[in-house]
């Protein structure tokens, strides 16, 4: 983390060893952290891609594992109303994390899913993507959960509450459009 006030750089998590030990920031170990999101309460959520996990550095500097028991596929996440707890989920290849308010999203590159995690409850819901199936589809104006992505590897939750997704193999950015603009867009 860059501290502009002192013009210094400081490690907030990771001891340099490639592993998955939780604990105090610089005592914990990480394995290919690939994406971070900072919540409004200053918790830092990140994808630890090497071991397919979602982890957190709390605002007090403690690293913990939020989800991703090991690298694998969770068929249940393909069900929109599955209600799987992130703590018991497997991810095959989580690549990016983004968030807004009380929710963060995980873009998984192999499953081709965007999964929303409600932070207070830890329950995961499929926001976009039909899953790991062929052929890849590219159709505007349909339900986001019907799309088959080709390398979904990024996301951004915008200020309006919509979610944009980067699909690198097609070089496009998708946006999940809110169905009615008159509704409140954030939790």
């Amino acid at each position, binding site marked *: 983390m*860059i*501290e502009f006030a002192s013009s210094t750089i400081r*490690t907030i998590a990771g001891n340099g060893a490639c592993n998955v030990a939780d604990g105090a920031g610089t005592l914990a170990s990480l394995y290919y952290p690939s*994406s971070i999101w900072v919540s409004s309460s200053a918790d830092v959520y990140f994808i630890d891609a090497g071991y397919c996990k979602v982890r957190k550095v709390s605002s007090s500097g403690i690293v913990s594992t939020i989800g991703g028991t090991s690298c694998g596929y969770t068929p249940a996440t393909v069900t929109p109303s599955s209600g799987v707890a992130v703590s018991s989920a497997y991810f095959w290849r989580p690549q990016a994390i983004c968030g807004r308010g009380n929710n963060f999203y995980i873009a998984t590159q192999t499953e081709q899913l965007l999964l*929303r995690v409600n932070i207070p409850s830890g329950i995961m819901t499929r926001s976009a993507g039909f899953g790991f199936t062929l052929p890849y589809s590219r159709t505007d104006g349909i339900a986001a959960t019907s799309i088959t992505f080709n390398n979904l590897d990024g996301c951004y939750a915008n200020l309006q509450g919509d979610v944009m997704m*980067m699909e690198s193999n097609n*070089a496009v*950015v*998708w946006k999940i459009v809110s169905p009615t603009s008159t*509704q409140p867009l954030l939790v």
Partner: protein
Amino acid sequence: MIVSDGAIIDTYVGMSNTGCANRMNGGPALNSQVNVRTITQDTSGNYYMMGPNYLTKMVSNGTIYTIAGGGSYNAFYNGFVGTYVNIAYGHGVALDTAGTIYYSERSGYCVIRSVNPSTLVVNTVVGNYGTCNNNGDQSLFLATLGDPWTLQYHPPNQLLICQ
């Protein structure tokens, strides 16, 4: 209230890998061929999108502009306006409250660069171009980075780097 689960989806940027020429300056974003790694947004609703070779800005009417990239001066050089700058392995982007844009260049380059929002001049914030190992906690002037991926700005004056 969550509106996005399974809601209607739309292509926002890019026209897929159809081999078209880059049209990233003053044209519609939908007609551009961009490879976007990360996105951030300012309070006016403009998006800043970082790809491997370009930092682009998309304004609210869907027009896309090149902020940096496409030039010949790599991250060894400071003080050039964005379109004179060469970007390689660009990945993360963040925006501070003053509007300064930060982006990362990954493997083999390993720097965090800043873009002045008024002049669009690009400078290195931290990292030594071409040195890719994390040399620990210290001053920005001396620090070298491992492999900087995504960035997140945390007000009032911190920039988080995932490396």
